[in-house]
């Protein structure tokens, strides 16, 4: 890896960061609104990346877990009057606990069976959210969720929320990179390449998988927390199987192990679905075609095309 490539990357990164910071100044409210969603969604998508890219496991429950985070904060703030910031930790914890309770025993299953189990988890959570009316208001959803505030300053408009979303996405990215670069990242990659060999070099495979699950849930819960305080209304249909599929696609489209790829894919897909919104059914047909054609022709992710041209040998991070 030559210094000129490294330097070029630095410049691209800095330029991107500058553009992001300046966005609300020159873009319309609508664009900022979409940008907020993109930033929020990077959390469950990156969380899913721990499982798919690094542990080699596909999960279709991320939508439900995102919802658990959202509902936890929604209920704590509307029913019990907590301030939003105080609910962050409980929301994340609740999501992690639920994920490990329901899915902990399932992570040891072979790949396809694990997917099946996550479908079960997804549906169970959705059905409970929809039908436990005393707790969640069921199909009416939870309204009037308060905005996040610091002192007297509340983050209510898209522009105001934007900086929180940017900071959150940034922290999520940095934290994820650190986790991937830690020994856990090595263990997960090893066990996803060859589980038996990983055990044979003293990797505690079962424990590593559960930690990956817990991390993916933590990221999902954090994302859900942000989401609830941005749209300020939650309903079970926001956290159904479609949402899980969307996050999975975003996670895969960016290329399995590239966090930057996932972020870019999230941006592209969310923008695409927004752009197509006025087209009704055709929007969904286009979305379906994107999924289908994407998997048919770019099974390793779209960004690997770009990667291959840049052709920097993957330096082993110790």
């Amino acid at each position, binding site marked *: 890896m030559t210094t000129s490539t490294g330097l070029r990357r630095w410049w691209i990164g800095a330029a991107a960061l500058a553009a992001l910071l300046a966005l609300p100044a020159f873009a319309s409210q609508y664009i900022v609104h979409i940008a907020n969603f993109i930033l929020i969604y990077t959390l469950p998508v990156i969380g899913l990346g721990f499982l798919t890219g690094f542990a080699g496991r596909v999960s279709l429950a991320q939508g439900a877990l995102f919802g658990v985070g959202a509902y936890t904060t929604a209920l704590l703030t509307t029913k019990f009057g907590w301030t939003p910031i105080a609910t962050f930790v409980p929301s994340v914890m609740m999501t992690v606990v639920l994920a490990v309770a329901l899915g902990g025993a399932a992570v040891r299953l072979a790949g396809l069976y694990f997917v099946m189990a996550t479908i079960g988890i997804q549906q169970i959570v959705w059905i409970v959210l929809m039908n436990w009316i005393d707790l969640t208001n069921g199909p009416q959803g939870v309204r009037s969720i308060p905005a996040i505030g610091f002192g007297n300053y509340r983050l209510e408009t898209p522009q105001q929320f934007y900086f929180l979303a940017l900071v959150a996405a940034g922290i999520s990215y940095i934290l994820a990179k650190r986790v991937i*670069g*830690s020994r*856990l990242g090595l263990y997960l990659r*090893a066990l996803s390449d060859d589980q038996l060999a990983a055990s044979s*070099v003293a990797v505690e495979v079962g424990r590593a998988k559960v930690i990956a699950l817990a991390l993916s849930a933590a990221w999902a819960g954090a994302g859900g927390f942000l989401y609830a305080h941005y749209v300020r209304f939650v309903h079970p249909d926001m956290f159904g199987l479609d949402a899980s599929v969307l996050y999975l696609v975003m996670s895969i489209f960016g290329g399995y192990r590239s966090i930057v790829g996932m972020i870019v894919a999230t941006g592209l897909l969310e923008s695409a679905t927004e752009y197509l919104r006025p087209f009704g059914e055709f929007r969904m047909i286009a979305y379906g075609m994107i999924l289908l054609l994407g998997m048919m022709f770019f099974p390793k992710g779209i960004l690997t095309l770009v990667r291959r041209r840049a052709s920097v040998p*993957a*330096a082993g991070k110790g």
Partner: protein
Amino acid sequence: MALLSASKVSLAFAGVRALVDIDLQIEKGELLGIIGPNGSGKSTLFNVLSGIYRVDQGTIEFRGRRTERLGIAQIVRSGIARTFQNKRLFGTMSVLDNVVVAALKGAQGSVLGDVLGLRSSAKARMKAKDTANRCLALTGLAESTYLLARDLPYGAQNRLELARALALEPTLLLLDEPAAGLNPSERTALQELIRRIHGEGVTIALVEHDVRMVTGLCARAIVLDHGEKIADGASAMVVRDPRVQAAYFGEVESGEEAHAT
């Protein structure tokens, strides 16, 4: 007391008896050969010793501790490392990372420590990296550390398996047909390498088809046939044993010499 002692170990799969009443001692510091025709149970024996298979009957003791019920990772941590006959490398990881994963065994620090950038964790990572580099240098892979494991040529993959096992700093090293697929000059180099590792005090058990390599390296050898141990003694004697020759009779194996020269 023997370093490893297996007693009356038996294992059957779907009616096929893979191991029958195996008694085996491995003494500390020795280089033991394990030979036998195809399907005689050599790899199965290793799988049992390394915890991949559970025995139906019998006991295994390593350094005084019973291991037949332990999990794979636990057994590795207690000091046994192995290589695989069909190379099981971490294909998408670099050569260096393949070995670092192993070198991290028992390292100080934790995931949280890594994430937070704690000094103790970072030092442990550096130490693991050093160990890894040392093992790679020993096996002649120092030039290839940043290549992806799956891009290595066959002979190099063999050596990577070995480097990875060495990084676990084992007391007992189980080598499962490390010479398979190697050309003669590679075989000689491998023999040298095994001698060096042995010289550093590692106890080694070597499963090999190349009987000459076994007689060249190993003072003692045992012979398996259809899951049973049919000979156990000085390797030069064992290969002359008529029962052993009968077991190998009719084996069509290129490069193999069933009768000792």
